[in-house]
């Protein structure tokens, strides 16, 4: 008993925290996969939200807390809501069709799905190959000083080096706001 305890204690536990990012990472992939596969749109959207949350946690695990929380705030608080509202506002045939998939089966759609899957698999394979054979990725070392992005530094950067992009983003967001409202507005005729 004592020996087992010591054996467990002797494992390289000190390296554990830096591999913890795998949990949100894999969960994210799982959720994303579920989102792609589920036929019910709301379930898909909820899975995507879970995957976004995991992505945010992953950012935090990688030391970018600010980005992580921004990801949560923007994606979970805003984009997810947009998506869910959009789904509710567009009663699509896909939700109804999910009741009996066989009746909706058509050769062309199967071909379509197969082609899409093949292409994305190709892309995945290409990317993985590139990652696997890239010497720089393989030899990358964590910098001596752990990466950190204090919020003050981000603020300073925003208002100095990236001031112009910031202004651009401001204009873009305003334009998107107005544009989205205009596009989604009901025609006065109808």
């Amino acid at each position, binding site marked *: 008993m004592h020996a087992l305890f010591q054996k467990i204690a002797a494992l390289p536990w000190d390296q554990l925290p*830096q591999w913890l*990012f795998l949990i949100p990472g894999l969960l*994210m*992939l799982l959720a*994303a*996969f579920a*989102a*792609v596969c589920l036929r019910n*749109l709301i379930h*898909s*959207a909820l899975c*995507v939200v879970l995957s976004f949350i995991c*992505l945010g946690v*992953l*950012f935090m695990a*990688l*030391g*970018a807390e600010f*980005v992580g929380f*921004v*990801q949560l705030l*923007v*994606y979970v608080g805003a*984009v997810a809501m*947009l*998506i869910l*509202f959009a789904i509710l*506002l*567009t009663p*699509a045939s896909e939700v109804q069709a999910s009741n009996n998939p066989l009746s909706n089966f058509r050769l062309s*759609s199967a071909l*379509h799905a197969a082609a*899409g*899957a093949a*292409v*994305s*698999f190709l*892309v*995945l394979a290409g*990317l993985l190959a590139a*990652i*696997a054979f890239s010497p720089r990725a*393989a030899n*990358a070392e964590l*910098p001596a*000083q*752990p*990466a950190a*992005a204090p919020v003050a530094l*981000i603020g300073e950067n925003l208002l100095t080096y*990236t001031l112009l*992009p910031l202004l651009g*983003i401001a204009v873009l*967001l305003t334009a998107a706001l107005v*544009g*989205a*409202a205009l*596009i989604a507005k009901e*025609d006065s005729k*109808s």
Partner: protein
Amino acid sequence: MMLQILLAISAALFALGLLAALTRRNAIMVLIGIELMLGAGNLNFISFWKFSAHPETITGVMFAIFSIAIAAAEAAVGLAIVIQVHRRLHSVDVNEANQLKG
């Protein structure tokens, strides 16, 4: 090793996003796929920043922040377009909205 795993995760997320965008007929799912791909891009930014030689110049973080902002704008406009398309065509199938084809 860690960077490679991170990149692999990101590549897988990208491929899943692409899969959603390629196979799903519903325009909203296509948009979701695009959001996933943008998320994969952000993950790359953060990973490379984490493993860069000079993390104190927080370029990757800044990029990710801007990318998130743009993604939000894209989602808003994209979904508004989807709703409008639905209003016109009573369908959100991306292949039905083909009235501009040659």
